[in-house]
């Protein structure tokens, strides 16, 4: 399909792509550049220097000296991985029921998820904290995962995806005697791989970036996640923008890598999922 595009269209496409590229990643290149600047460079000169004069990786090892980056990254990874699994499973199950099954109370259930989406987090986090304390889960990584382990938005995304599937394919399976569970696993789920990948990315990202909740629920510094730990770089008595920049890159890089890897599957998934006519 790619071959049929006229040359001028292809050129226009790349021009547009490059323009958007400049706008979207420009700021990060600036951050990357800051993180590579040497200790003698003026951070506040005017006009600002775009490239480091004495590039160095010291700031990255500096971050690792101040906080146990690897341990915190491992904690973040555990939390994010768990969140991906629970969100994919939980929201696929719920989304399927809301979109494909007919039962009394379906509207009510849908409303419940919509309502949950609207609740402002600011107004409930202390209540969440006491619940965790009552469950004796405070200061554990489980408590970090639990409130967001099945996001209402992911449920609605899955519902939207399932509702697009033509009814015919499932009807055939019903005639073949397949029960709900079999239809869900064998027919419906493979058709929404693309959206599942979206849910996976969103939940990984959400768990990885979350700051306030892990901060509130964890008290033991050994259990901190990366975002919380990196906050230690905003020093009390000294602020080194290079270290902060290096910390930012450390936090963002895994997400970009993960997206870069996943997007391949994501597109293959959607391609495969297309209904064979």
């Amino acid at each position, binding site marked *: 399909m790619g071959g049929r595009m006229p040359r001028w269209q292809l050129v226009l496409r790349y021009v*547009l792509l490059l323009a958007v590229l400049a706008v979207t990643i420009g700021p990060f290149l600036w951050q990357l550049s800051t993180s590579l600047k040497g200790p003698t460079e003026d951070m506040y000169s005017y006009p600002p220097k775009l490239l480091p004069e004495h590039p160095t990786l010291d700031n990255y090892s500096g971050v690792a000296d101040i906080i146990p980056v690897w341990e915190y990254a491992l904690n973040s990874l555990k939390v994010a991985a768990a969140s991906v699994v629970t969100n994919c499973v*939980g929201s696929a199950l*719920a989304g399927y029921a809301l979109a494909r099954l007919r039962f009394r109370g379906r509207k009510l*259930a849908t409303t419940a998820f919509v309502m949950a989406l609207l609740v402002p987090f*600011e107004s409930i986090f202390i209540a969440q904290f006491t619940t965790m304390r009552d469950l004796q889960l405070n200061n554990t990584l489980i408590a970090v995962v639990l409130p967001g382990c099945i996001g209402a938005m992911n449920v609605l995304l899955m519902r939207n995806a399932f509702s697009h599937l033509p009814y015919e394919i499932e009807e055939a399976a019903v005639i073949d005697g397949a029960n709900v569970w079999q239809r869900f696993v064998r027919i419906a789920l493979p058709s929404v791989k693309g959206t599942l*990948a979206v849910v996976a990315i969103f939940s990984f990202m959400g768990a990885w970036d979350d700051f306030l909740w892990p901060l509130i629920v964890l008290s033991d510094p050994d259990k901190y996640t990366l975002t919380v730990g990196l906050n230690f770089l905003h020093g009390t008595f000294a602020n080194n923008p290079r270290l902060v920049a290096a910390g930012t890159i450390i936090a963002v890089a895994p997400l*970009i890598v993960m997206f870069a890897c996943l*997007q391949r599957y994501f597109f293959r998934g959607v391609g495969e999922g297309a209904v064979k006519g």
Partner: protein
Amino acid sequence: MSARTHRAASPWLFLLPGLVIIAAFSLYPFISTVGTAFTDARTLTPGHWVGLRNFQDMLDDEQFWTGLRNSTLYVLLVVPCTVLLPLLLALLVQKQVPGIAFFRSSFYTPVVASVVVVALIWVWMLDDRGLVNGILGYFGTGPVEFLSDQWLLLFSAMALTVWKGLGYYMIIYLAALANVPKELHEAAAVDGAGAVRRFISITVPAVRSTMVLVGALSSVAAFKVFTEVYLMAGPTGGPAGEDTTIVMLVQRVGTGLSGRTGYASALSVVIFVVTLVLMLLVLRADRKDGE
């Protein structure tokens, strides 16, 4: 197990995990917030019942009206952009051309980056001696006071929100676009339909339900905007507090050790109701279009 009980029970089994989680960690805590809204509770002191006083106080609170105005403007100006621009972007990156994986991933970076960092970079760029004013100066236009004018500040924050959401909604659209049968486009192309016409008559109808979903999600998010404005306009909400949004007000009155929890809860209830109405409006518009 008979077929009938199976059919009756299984939907609820599918829903059970999701329902338990949202009930325990969103709905139940929020119900208690609603209760608090009628008290004069503070962060560390339980309150007494004060009836509707918090809601009456809101009517006299200048900042409440400012917040409501700014949050509403945010919805009106940001949502059309977040519904349309990411769709166009998705169309741009949908086609498999060499290097497309790189572009897709790059377009997603603003989403994954922490908004704190992003806002700092934006502030630096929009400063009166920043990059943008440098470019404007090159063309002979005087420095534009992006960071001290109440409206320019609000618009800059909106631009940041749209920019940060581009990649996010782009991938929702990409997933939806993949379901649009290619044959439709090809047939239309053979018929001689131009790109614009194909967009309006094929793409838009095919992803309409996704557009509605994006519209609903982004209007809720836009009404609840906090971080972008907070970081760009400062904690006090821009010059003389004129850029305060409603969630910023919740944060201002309700946080800290002596926060006015009761009043903040009442504000949260208002936010909840407004977003609910917004959601219903969007969904309603969808139904009408569909007929």
